C-alpha cells in the first residue's frame, strides 16, 4: 500500500486570527514495503505531516492518497476510521495511551474497535506481546505496574495488534537507554524484513536513519528541502549542519579522515561501511610493502 501526498497544504485554524500555515505544497510518496525516515528540526512540520498519514487531519489543500482511499479537504469525516487500521501510528511516549485493567485488554482494545471478535483479539494480543519481547506472564498484569520500557512495548503491541500495513513511528526510542533503543530498533527491522511492513520513522537520530532507512525526507518549515536515499541526503556535512540536522556518527568521523587527506567516493554512513572503505586502504597499504 502506497501513501502519496499531492500538493498538500495544511493550515491550523484557517480564517481565524490564530491561523498558522504548517505545510506548504508537499509532494511525496511512501512506497509499499519501504523504510522511510522523516527528519527535520523541531517546528519543521513533522508532527503535522504524521497526522495526515492516517487521516487524523485532512489537508486544507491538495490530496492525500492512502492505498486506494483519497482524502481531500471536502472528504467526509465519517468513513475515515478504517484507514487507521491500515496505517498504525505509534506516537511519542506511547505508554501514555495505556488505560485498561490488564495488558491483554489494552492490546486487544485497538482490534476490537475495528470489529475483531473477542477471541481473535485475545489471540492477537498474546501474539503481539511475544513480538515485542514480553512473555505471556504479562498478559494478566496491570499495565501500570510495569516499568517504563515495558509499558512502551505494551503500547506498541497495541498498535501492532491492529495488523497495520504501514507502521508509523514517532521517535520510538525517546527516553530509552542504549540497550532499550537497540532492542527496539532491531524489533522494527525484524517486522520490516519478516513481515514486509512499510515503516515510516520520524526521528532526530541520524544514526538510526543511516542504519535502517532506505529513503529519507528532510522537512524544514513545512517544506521538503531534500529527499532521496541516505547516501545522497547525507553527503554534504556542511549542509546538514546549516540545516541544524544531526550528522551520522560514521560520516562525521569519516570527514575527519577526509581532512587528513583520505579520499572516499561517498562518505560512509555506518561503521560497517567505513570499515569496508578502510579495508581497501589497508589492502593497498599491504600491497605497497
Amino acid at each position, binding site marked *: 500500500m502506497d501513501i502519496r501526498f499531492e500538493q498538500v497544504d495544511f493550515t*491550523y*485554524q484557517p480564517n481565524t486570527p*490564530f491561523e*498558522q500555515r504548517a505545510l506548504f505544497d508537499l509532494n511525496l510518496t511512501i512506497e509499499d514495503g519501504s523504510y522511510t525516515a522523516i527528519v527535520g528540526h523541531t517546528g519543521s512540520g513533522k508532527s503535522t505531516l504524521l*497526522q495526515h498519514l*492516517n487521516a*487524523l487531519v485532512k489537508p486544507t489543500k491538495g490530496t492525500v492518497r492512502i492505498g486506494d482511499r483519497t482524502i481531500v479537504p471536502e472528504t467526509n469525516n465519517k468513513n475515515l*476510521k478504517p484507514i*487507521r*487500521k491500515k496505517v*498504525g*501510528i505509534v*506516537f511519542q511516549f*506511547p505508554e*501514555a*495511551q*495505556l*488505560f485498561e485493567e490488564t495488558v491483554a485488554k489494552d492490546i486487544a*482494545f*485497538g482490534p476490537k*474497535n*475495528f470489529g475483531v471478535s473477542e477471541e481473535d483479539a485475545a489471540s492477537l494480543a498474546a501474539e503481539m506481546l511475544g513480538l515485542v519481547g514480553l512473555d505471556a506472564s504479562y498478559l494478566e498484569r496491570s499495565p*501500570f505496574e510495569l516499568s517504563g520500557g515495558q509499558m512502551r512495548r505494551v503500547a506498541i503491541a*497495541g*498498535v501492532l495488534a*491492529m495488523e497495520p500495513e504501514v507502521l508509523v513511528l514517532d521517535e520510538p526510542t525517546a527516553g530509552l537507554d542504549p540497550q532499550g533503543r537497540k532492542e527496539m530498533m532491531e524489533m522494527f527491522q525484524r517486522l520490516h524484513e519478516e513481515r514486509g511492513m512499510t515503516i515510516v520513522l520520524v526521528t532526530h537520530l541520524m544514526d538510526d536513519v543511516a542504519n535502517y532507512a532506505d529513503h529519507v525526507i528532510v522537512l524544514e518549515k513545512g517544506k521538503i528541502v531534500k529527499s532521496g536515499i541516505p547516501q545522497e541526503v547525507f553527503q554534504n556535512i556542511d549542509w546538514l549542519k546549516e540545516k541544524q540536522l544531526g550528522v551520522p556518527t560514521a560520516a562525521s568521523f569519516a570527514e575527519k579522515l577526509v581532512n587528513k587527506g583520505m579520499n572516499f567516493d561517498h562518505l560512509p554512513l555506518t561503521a560497517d561501511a567505513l570499515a569496508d572503505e578502510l579495508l581497501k586502504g589497508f589492502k593497498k597499504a599491504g600491497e605497497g610493502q
Partner: protein
Amino acid sequence: MNKLIFGRYIPGNSFIHTMDPRAKLVASFYFIGIIFLANNWQTYAMLTIFTLFAIFLSKINIRFFIRGIKPLIWLILFTVALQMLFTQGGEVYFKWGIFTLTEFGIMNGLMIFCRFVLIIFMSTLLTLTTPPLDLSDAIEYLLRPLKVLRFPVHEVSLMLSIALRFVPTLMDETEKIMNAQRARGVDFGEGNLIQKMKAVVPLLIPLFVSSFNRAEDLATAMEARGYQGGDGRTKYRILHWHVKDTAVMLAFAALTAVLILLRS
C-alpha cells in the same frame, strides 16, 4: 499547540489592564452588590453609563462582551418573560388567562434584563483584562485575614497557581492522548450518549494516571528545592497598588452615593 486563550484573557495596556488585580476583583464584586440599589430608569442609566465607560477604558471591542451574553441568553429571556407576564401593577395592556402584561411588568422586565447584562459585562471585563495568575495573586492577598482562622491561605494559593501553570500542559497532553486513541479506532464525537461516555474512558484514565505521576514528581522536586510549607517563605511576585486604584475605589464610592440619591 496551544490556541485557546485560557480564561479568555486578551493582552493589552489599557487603564483597566494595568490596574491592580485586587482593585479589579473588589470592584467587580462591589458592583454586583450595588446593582441592587437601582430601581428606576435613572439609576439604571447611571450604571449603564458607568459600565460602558469602563469598557471604553479597556480598549477592548464590545463584541467580546456581547459574546459573553450569548451562552446565557435563553436564561435571561426566560426570566424577563416571567417578569413581564406575571407582574401586577399600573396600566394593563393585555390579559390572557394567567398571563398579564402590565406597565410595571414591562418596566421590571427591562430592568432585570439590564441587570443581567451589566453583571455579565462587568465580570467579563475582569476576566478579559486580568491574567488568571494575577487573579490568583489577588485572591491570595484578599484571603490573608483568614489565616487567623487557620485557613490554609498559602497552600490554597500555591495549589491554584500550580494548577493554572499546568492547564496548557494538560491541554496539550489531552490532545496527544486523544490522537493516540483515535489512531486506535476510538471515535470521540460519534454515537449516542452512552457511547460517547464510554469513549471518554481511554482519555480520562491515562490523564488521571499521568497527573498522579506528575504530582508525585513535583512534590519530590519541591522537597529537593527546600519547600517546607508556607512558614518563613518570602514572595517574589508582588502586587503594586497605585493612585489610580484608589481613584477607582473612590469612583465607586461616588457611584454608590449617586445611586442612593437617584433611587426612588
